[in-house]
């Protein structure tokens, strides 16, 4: 079985222990590096919005603006061989795990140099070599997959874990219920090292959590499956990193699932095409902007002296350059060759079963 399938034993695919070598933004785990990473994600997302508005990016586009501390914080606990799975708001996960911004951007531009050859677009980033088992477009639909992956990790005798990201809105869906129940059950035997990470940005499209369920404590919903859980302030990346490390260690050690609800906020619109935001007030958004995770971290780093204005400008400059390059690369890349239409439908001898 080819290594690219992530099917090699124990998921070992020969990468170095550090994440994302080679991208300027992800070369370490100190707070300044995390800051750099979050700025990189933000800059990337803003470039996406521009690309969408100018018609370079098609389909649906969902950005992570405002929520950066969640993915950044949790992925600080990622170890080689671990797996990550998420929904369609998946750019940060790909980038932080080490995908090159230019390949991610090329994917969004629908180019052959894209992360998945231009076949999936924004919602379907995969980078199996770096641990990303995909972005998925059906709300809740990826949750069972992640639970199964966690089972496989133990079945195959590894001590890897799966980080499974899900939205507040997805928790109304039956797929969440069934999968969480399986995770709890398999966890009893130490066979489900799955870390559930609820990206509670308080809305599923335009529907607030309060209008979605009569019981709004999302962490506590995991009680129904015998899964231990807690909450964290998803705007405070240090807090997220602390719980992430602790939770990941616990899951790795016990083979039992664990859930963390990270309270966060999407300051961008749900999808890039949404212009009206009748469902929330400008005031509410502004209020949350005060707690912007990048702003909070920046303030802290400036205060404690880890950063100064100069260094800050340097980081922003480097990041901008990186993303500008990515955009340029994406723009200049070719569309996939038309023959790609017919590849990857099936694995094995016949990739395509049909007339061309």
């Amino acid at each position, binding site marked *: 079985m080819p290594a690219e399938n992530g099917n090699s034993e124990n998921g070992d695919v020969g990468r170095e222990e550090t994440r994302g070598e080679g991208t300027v933004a992800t070369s370490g785990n100190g707070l300044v590096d995390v800051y750099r990473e979050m700025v990189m994600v933000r800059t990337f997302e803003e470039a996406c919005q521009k690309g969408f508005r100018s018609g370079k990016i098609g*389909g649906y586009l969902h950005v992570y603006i405002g929520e950066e501390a969640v993915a950044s914080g949790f992925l600080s606990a990622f170890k080689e061989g671990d797996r990550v799975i998420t929904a369609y708001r998946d750019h940060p996960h790909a980038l932080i795990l080490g995908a090159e911004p230019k390949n991610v951007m090329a994917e969004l531009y629908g180019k*052959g140099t894209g992360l998945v050859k*231009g*076949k999936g677009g924004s*919602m379907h980033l995969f980078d199996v070599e770096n641990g990303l088992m995909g972005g998925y477009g059906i709300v809740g639909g990826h949750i069972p997959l992640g639970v199964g992956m966690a089972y496989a990790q133990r079945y195959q005798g590894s001590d890897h874990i799966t980080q499974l990201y899900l939205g507040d809105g997805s928790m109304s869906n*039956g797929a969440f219920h069934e999968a969480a129940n399986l995770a709890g059950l398999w966890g009893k035997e130490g066979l489900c090292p799955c870390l559930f990470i609820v990206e509670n940005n308080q809305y599923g499209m335009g529907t607030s959590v309060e*209008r979605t369920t009569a019981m709004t404590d999302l962490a506590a919903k995991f009680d129904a499956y015998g899964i231990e859980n807690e909450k964290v302030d998803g705007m405070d990346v240090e807090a997220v990193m602390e719980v992430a490390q602790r939770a990941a260690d616990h899951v790795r050690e016990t083979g039992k699932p664990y859930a963390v609800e990270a309270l966060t906020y999407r300051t961008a619109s749900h999808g890039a095409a949404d212009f009206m935001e009748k469902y929330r007030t400008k005031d509410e958004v502004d209020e949350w902007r005060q707690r912007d995770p990048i702003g909070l971290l920046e303030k802290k780093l400036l205060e404690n002296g880890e950063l100064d204005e100069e260094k800050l400008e340097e980081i922003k400059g480097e990041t901008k350059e990186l993303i500008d390059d990515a955009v340029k690369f994406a723009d200049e890349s070719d569309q996939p060759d038309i023959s790609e239409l017919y590849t990857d*439908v099936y694995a094995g001898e016949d990739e395509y079963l049909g007339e061309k």
Partner: protein
Amino acid sequence: MAETKTYREALRDAMVHELDRDESVVLMGEDIGVYGGTHLITDGLYDEYGPKRIMDTPISEGGFTGAAIGMAMLGMRPIVEMMTWNFSFLASDQIIQNAAKVRYFSGGQVEVPLVIRGPNGGGVQLSAQHTHSLENLYGHFPGLKVVSPVTPNDAKGMMLTAVRDPNPVIFLEAGALYGTKGEVGEGDNAVPFGKARIAREGTDVTLIAYGRQVSLCMRAADALEEEDGVSAEVIDLRSIRPFDEDTLVKSVEKTHRAVAVQEQWKWFGVASEVAAIIQEQAFDYLDAPVQRVSGAEVPAPYARNLELAAFPSEKMVANAARRTLYIEEK
């Protein structure tokens, strides 16, 4: 009297008409209320009719579709928005196992006056999980009615019929065409199910489609006329279940040739059914095999060039027609 309206407005008009006429009509779905509807079809209705009639639901397609079935069984007339039909696999158990069958297995003790509506088909780079044409899937099951209007007039008229039908109706909208305009009859212009529409008369070959592919066939018909002097008849099926076999057969008795066009995949699709019916009922009239034009046998790709290549094109339709006429393809 008729007015020029978009497909979107036509749908909305029909629903407003029925909301006003019948208190038992309610709308349900994800983000149809406060948010205004993902496709803006229900925009403003929440303010007008309130939360008891314009019901925002959590993301639980199976749950709220099932609840709507229960409501319908007690005499309400819910119109459920499937934000896109791609999500309906999650509700397929409720639709197929309950809505379609409960009248039968209750020995006729209940009826299910329910409409499930939403955009069907692809075309805007939504890629594999968000691009499906499910007319054959739902059309297979007795107990359901399935329609697929393409003109704004039919969108309105068939929605009126759907809401009044005492059976569950799968209402497949041409999502890519919400913004297109057409003449729409005013007031109560209900369009019956089970009648195909002859979109263009012709004598040499019959092009058969529904939904967005009807426009494709119209363009192909123009090309055939201009480039080959061929007169193509275009039939818009509109109604998938019940299915109007007669209009098809009559047309082929006249033209002796047929092309069935669908966006969906070939195997077990509507075009296969069309071919089966025509060979069965117009066997002696056929001068060439019925040709089928379908989407490529791949999950929908994202990249624009691949997506375009994955769907039927005007050229493919025109060439299929040429094959039935034994003239050279272009």
